[in-house]
């Protein structure tokens, strides 16, 4: 695989190579036990927040829809547990403010089988039917952005999609959930890709995998060969792309695979492509034929502060405290300052409370101990010395150095108009390389927020 990257050259321009720290790449996915109580936030994805369709005291079975919205950009939620709705109201949320959530207490002794789903035959279904079925599963992008999948896979009338790009890069350090899913659920993934190709009308599917996961490439190629032997006619390829952060961003992956630069402000549909994550499609491949809702996902629980790191199949709504207790995060018991991050170390969200539940968009739980953060904390922040490292690492070709200085001067309009602040997708490369320890990405987030508020 190294040879591949040698001959193909750079995947996309700039970017960084953080140490990969994939501690859990060799471990099988294990199921986390069911907690006795789950908290399902109503707002788990981009778009409109669905509303609860159950009441307090109502009994629910696993897989039953408990929240729904009639808006286009919204998906239903399903009960992750068979039990009783105990509470509907504000609970601690991932981003800090408390959010409207449904708390379900498990029935002791319930089998926790998904009894709600109704298997159906989608072999003759049209694209529209498949999109409806995807909406029914409550699927959102499991890679982290949590964009409703039916909206992502629906193609406007004027556009035509020829390629489904399947994102198996997992460029974030530490995270291995997509890697393990590709290896252990390759057949589900192929099924999911076929459904997505039919929904979008794509004639070929291309799975892009970073070349630091050669085992996944081999397993997927085998799975494709098996499927072809079983009579699958769709054209599906696996492509290894050189490892580099942030390859998992759809623009970067398209550049790495096809050499095409996505026009700024456009969608992959502009190039006739639709991009989806392997975790999402593997879950679709499993759920769609069974007609079940999304009630669990694979989460990487890792980091120096975790005694039993691994990829766990966690039911949605499981409180972090339960996850960390099970995975053995010894620092959790001590009154020790530390950091718990939802997502990867480059773009993940540090959370303030361990009562925060696992939601659809959480791909990893990272725990750093006090000693892991000491080096960073002791770093002094200098003024920008204009070394140009950030300019050479920004995958979007922006000038973070100048943007940072403008942000310090609160010249937000200038940043947006002349320096293309809107193109920044907050991958964190500039802050990662900054020798002056300037929180560039944070400044950009603030600037974008202010610009959004001004525009509104």
């Amino acid at each position, binding site marked *: 695989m190294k040879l591949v990257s040698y001959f193909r050259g750079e995947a996309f321009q700039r970017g960084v190579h953080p140490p990969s720290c994939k501690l859990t790449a060799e471990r099988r996915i294990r199921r986390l036990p069911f907690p006795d109580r789950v908290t399902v936030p109503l707002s788990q994805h981009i778009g409109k927040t669905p509303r609860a369709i159950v009441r307090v005291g109502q009994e629910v079975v696993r897989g039953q829809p408990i929240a729904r919205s009639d*808006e*286009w950009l919204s998906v239903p939620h399903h009960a992750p547990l068979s039990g009783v709705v105990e509470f509907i109201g504000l609970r601690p949320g991932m981003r800090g403010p408390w959010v409207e959530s449904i708390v379900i207490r498990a029935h002791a002794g319930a089998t926790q089988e998904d009894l709600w789903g109704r298997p159906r035959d989608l072999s003759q279904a049209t694209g529209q039917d498949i999109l409806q079925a995807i909406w029914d599963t409550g699927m959102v992008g499991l890679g982290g952005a949590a964009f409703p999948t039916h909206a992502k896979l629906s193609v406007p009338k004027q556009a035509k999609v020829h390629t489904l790009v399947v994102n198996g890069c997992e460029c974030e350090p530490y995270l291995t959930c997509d890697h393990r899913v590709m290896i252990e659920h390759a057949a589900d993934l192929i099924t999911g890709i076929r459904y997505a190709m039919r929904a979008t009308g794509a004639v070929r599917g291309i799975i892009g995998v970073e070349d630091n996961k050669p085992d996944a490439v081999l397993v997927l190629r085998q799975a494709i060969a098996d499927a072809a032997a079983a009579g699958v006619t769709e054209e599906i390829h696996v492509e290894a792309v050189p490892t580099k952060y942030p390859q998992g961003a759809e623009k970067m992956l398209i550049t790495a695979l096809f050499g095409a630069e996505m026009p700024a402000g456009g969608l992959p549909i502009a190039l006739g492509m639709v991009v989806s994550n392997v975790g999402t499609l593997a879950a679709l491949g499993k759920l769609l034929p069974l007609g079940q809702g999304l009630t669990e996902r694979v989460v990487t629980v890792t980091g120096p502060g975790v005694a039993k790191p691994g990829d766990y199949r966690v039911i949605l709504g499981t409180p972090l405290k339960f996850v960390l207790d099970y995975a053995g995060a010894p620092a959790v018991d001590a009154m020790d300052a530390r950091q718990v991050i939802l997502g990867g170390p480059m773009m993940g969200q540090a959370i303030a409370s361990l009562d925060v539940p696992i939601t659809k968009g959480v791909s990893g739980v990272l725990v750093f101990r006090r000693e892991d953060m000491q080096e960073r904390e002791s770093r002094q922040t200098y003024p920008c010395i204009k070394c140009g490292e950030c300019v050479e690492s920004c995958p979007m070709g922006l*000038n973070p150095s100048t943007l940072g200085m403008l942000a310090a001067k609160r010249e937000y309009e200038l940043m947006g108009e002349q320096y293309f602040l809107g193109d920044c997708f907050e991958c964190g490369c500039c802050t990662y390389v900054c020798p002056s320890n300037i929180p560039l990405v944070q400044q950009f987030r603030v600037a974008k927020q202010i610009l959004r508020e001004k525009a509104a």
Partner: protein
Amino acid sequence: MTQPLIEIRSAPHVQSAKTVETIMRNVVYSLLPICAFYVFQYGISALASIAVVTGACLLTERFFVRTGTQAGRLSDYSAVITGLLLALTLPPGFPLWMGAVAGIVAIALGKALFGGIGFNVFNPALVGRAFVQAAFPTAIATYTPSFLPGRFTEFIPSTLAWPLMIPADATAWLKAKNLDALAGATPLAKWKFDGVIANADELLTSLSGHMAVGPSPLLILLCGAYLASRRYMDWRIPLAVLGSAALTAWLLFAFDPARYPNPFFMLFSGGLILGAVYMATDMATSPVTPKGMWVYGALIGLLTVVIRYYSGLPEGVMYAILIANAASPLIEKITQPVPFGRGVLDRVKKRATYPLNPGYISREEASAVTPKKRFLPNKPKK
């Protein structure tokens, strides 16, 4: 149970190992062999000069950091770099008190005035040198030959001049050593005023003759290669400076070989190599954009040769770099990188190996044509 203490910080939660301190420290490391060879060439006078100039820089930096006038810390090594570089650009027999003045001016006027590390507009070491060049024109033009016998036991007489006093003339001292005063001229001065072009080996190491060349260009290139390979320095700027200087010199040489020296002499004489590798690459005073670095370096190379050929001065690197420093914000402004996906659309299309959609749909259009309700999920019947 009390809630365990959790800290919140914004992403990214990991950082590369490179900090301002490591960059500056590595630049200092790379300067040490150059300084050592310089001392080997010129003896204890050079050593005293390096120590005094660097000391003056550090003390001035400490004063301004303590009084809160400038950002940064003493431990960021940037003042050490300024001191070492400044000392390397001065003649080895430069009076120590003048060296101290140069160091103080370099930090006070070149750096603290603008707010400290990262804010300076001009290279501090060159600001210091420009000041003493204007203030002490004779002393700064007085070079002594390298590899003098007894250089490790005896100071060059001008070194120990009393503060505010004119240094002793080195001519008599050189005569006592059976050397004529001209031996102390730099290769550039010899070419400018006498039309003598020095040999290659004299320029590169000065091991054979008594030519008064500065720090060894070969060693500087080697140390610069180390810095560039570790990515503590940008490789584009030295390449652009040397390339543009060589090109300009070669064009003129090809035009009239009798009048203009060969490009090799232009590259390896005077302070061009030191300036290209260590002065022009000063991060704070050079553009951040890759294209801007090429323009900036090319400007320095061109200006250096022009000043050397057409002005009254034998050396032009310092003024070339200072002028380019002043132009660097402008250069940066006109060489902003083209963001991803904002280039010429034809180029984008050409690079694509798969056919693109004929009708390109922007995000706004896509949302406009997507019906808000494509299908009504289980809408209750009235």
